């Protein structure tokens, strides 16, 4: 960190400490011209910006105008007072996980994964589960300690619960990528409700992942953990191992 930084008053760094520079881009549904520029300037000013430089005003057709703007914010945050809510993970290697599970659990951990409801995107799920993993970080199928059932996309929550029972799952892993008008929340809540009704909720470790998922949201919805963007398969593997061993002991 920059020496002598005032952590109680953190502002964006553009070119110099505390200059507060932010780049913005947006479109206004009005024809390009001096009036549109002024509208954009006023809008940005109203958000607490100064030194507003409109570097691009572009007519993008049908009376839409696109802006790129640099401006300085007068806002700041107190970094010292921030508390975050994240999944706690102690990193472990593949061998370490395999050893621990075989020593203490003496069987494989059964993991059932799916994208639920209308979500057809399996990229996130596959990155975590498939052998290949993501960016050199192996997926859960690669771990001897895990028995993985990847049910794929658009699995109805009821079907997922049935499979979880059939396979005697220790862990249910749900991925939700696409969302519009918060539909993913309803689907995730449905799953919890069904698990509750089936008296399975306490028997499984319930995990949700996706680019717009936070741990805080996941816990609020009744999940044990939520993993957001940037999560690696090894993060999920370490979390599962830690929690399963704590539960079994």
């Amino acid at each position, binding site marked *: 960190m920059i020496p002598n930084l005032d952590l109680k008053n953190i502002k964006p760094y553009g070119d110099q400490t505390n200059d507060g520079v932010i780049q913005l881009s*947006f479109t206004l549904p009005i024809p390009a011209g001096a009036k549109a520029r002024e509208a954009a300037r006023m809008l940005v000013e109203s958000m607490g910006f100064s030194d507003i430089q409109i570097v691009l005003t572009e007519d993008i*057709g*049908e009376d839409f105008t696109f802006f790129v703007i640099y401006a300085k914010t007068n806002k700041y945050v107190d970094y010292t007072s921030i508390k975050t809510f994240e999944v706690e993970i102690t990193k472990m290697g593949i061998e370490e996980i395999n050893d621990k599970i075989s020593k203490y659990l003496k069987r494989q951990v059964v993991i059932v994964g799916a994208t639920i409801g*209308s*979500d057809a995107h399996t*990229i996130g799920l596959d990155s975590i589960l498939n052998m290949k993993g993501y960016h050199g970080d192996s997926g859960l199928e690669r771990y001897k300690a895990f028995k993985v059932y990847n049910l794929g996309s658009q699995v109805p929550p009821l079907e997922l619960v049935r499979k979880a029972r059939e396979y005697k799952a220790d862990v249910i892993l749900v991925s939700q990528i696409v969302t*519009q008008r918060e539909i993913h929340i309803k689907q995730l809540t449905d799953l919890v409700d069904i698990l509750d009704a089936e008296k399975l909720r306490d028997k499984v470790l319930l995990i949700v992942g996706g680019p717009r998922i936070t741990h805080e949201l996941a816990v609020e919805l009744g999940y044990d953990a939520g993993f957001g963007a940037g999560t690696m398969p090894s993060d999920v593997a370490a979390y599962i191992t830690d929690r399963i061993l704590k539960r079994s002991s």
Partner: protein
Amino acid sequence: MHLDLDQNLVRKARELAKAVTDDVQKFINLRSTDSVERTVTRLYGIDGVDTDGIPLPNVVVHDVKSHDGLKRGITYWIANACVAKSMSPQEIAESVGRKEFSLVEIRPQKESIVAEKIDELTEESIRKLEKIKNERDSMLETLGNPNQPYIYVIVATGNIYEDVIQAKAAVSEGADIIAVIRSTAQSLLDFVPFGVTTEGYGGTYATQANFKIMREALDEMASKVGRYIRLTNYASGLCMPEISAMAALEGLDMLLNDSMYGILFRNINMMRTFVDQYTSRFICAFSHITINTGEDNYIKTSDPIDRAHTVTASQLINEQFALKAGMKPEYMGIGHAFEIDPDVENGLLYEIAHALLTRELFPNATPKYMPPTRYMTGNIFKGYAQNTLYNLVSIMTGQSIHLLGMLTEAIHTPLVQDRYLAISNAKYVFNNAKALGKDIEFKKDGFIQKEASRVLENAISLLEHVKEVGLMASIEESVFGDISRKMDEGKGADGVFVKDEDYYNPIFDKMETMVRGDGL
């Protein structure tokens, strides 16, 4: 520039793909589906919903099927009822919807009069489709075809009226093709929703009313900008042939239509998909609708380099199925995609080899090239750079239909400025590197030549295997997209049936004859 492909191998690959599809076609010819029969009712003018909101094509087909009459085809039953009741097919359908009578309970009318009625209805329907096709063709001729690669963008607001606003903006920025993304999971509905819709998730419901609204908007823009604007929708899923018929009736130009996509990626029954794709494709052939195949999907789930040959093999299979449906190559948008991990050394060279292979294997087709999605991360600036390379490969290798990458891919459905930025990027690269492909020679035995040959050779080995075990068994073995589907499983299996000896479907017989005469 060109690849030194061994033309004997190219011929061999085609022959193998032909043999593979010949076997499947024998199964197809014996069967029909609920969706195929519903398509017939639509072409005879049946539309709308009953008081429970069920589409009348479903109502009529269900009525006949539940009385075990569907195996002779829906046509006879409709015509017989029209004669008996002196009503139009639409009036008949409305009456069935009100449960006034069942089609199979109507006394059989004099055969020659029913036959006459069938001829009359068929003639009328064919004339209507021909008129629409001719209007499209003449508008295309008057306004002129844009330069290739055609700039193809997507609108996906969920509300057809917002879609229109965004589509118009995209056209004025330079888009040549507008695709209206469908609402999530529509492909799994065994009916086509009815009427104008303003609520959809991840896209807007494909309905005939929505098709009409967008078609009118794009025609208006086309006259304004002085170039023909194509409209695209999706004919995959459980209603492939019905969507094709609706597209034909509303003058759409393109449909996403793959012979295996539904099986692999939507878990739709194999036989259902094979039968449905055949009908949907001769409708496309008849109405000059370009199909877009979906090979991009394979390399979203499996490795784009190791499994590149599965794309090639599937392209050849899609081509053969399209030829069987009487399609001319110029209406085949053979699919492929730029999906290699950007961290791969020489990834660009692999991409060029693969894209050029597609171009050269299908010299008379209009290849549909698709942008990076798998490694788009939320770093919009890097994503924009990836899309720039993608645009470069497309212009260099002479692709025809170019789906623009969005810098916000994997974040949200495109904002109006995302589409603008994508179009400016494509126009910049296409103009700046216009003649690059014509000026380049690739080194003999160099990286690109070798890679293209490797993919072709692997595709041949794969097709040899598929020919040996059969296409359906290979799908069970998860040959494509690393996904396995069983022959008798999947959605919509109960909607497939074997035609009786007295099965009669004159409108499709006539269309098939016409496309064959016109096509090959």
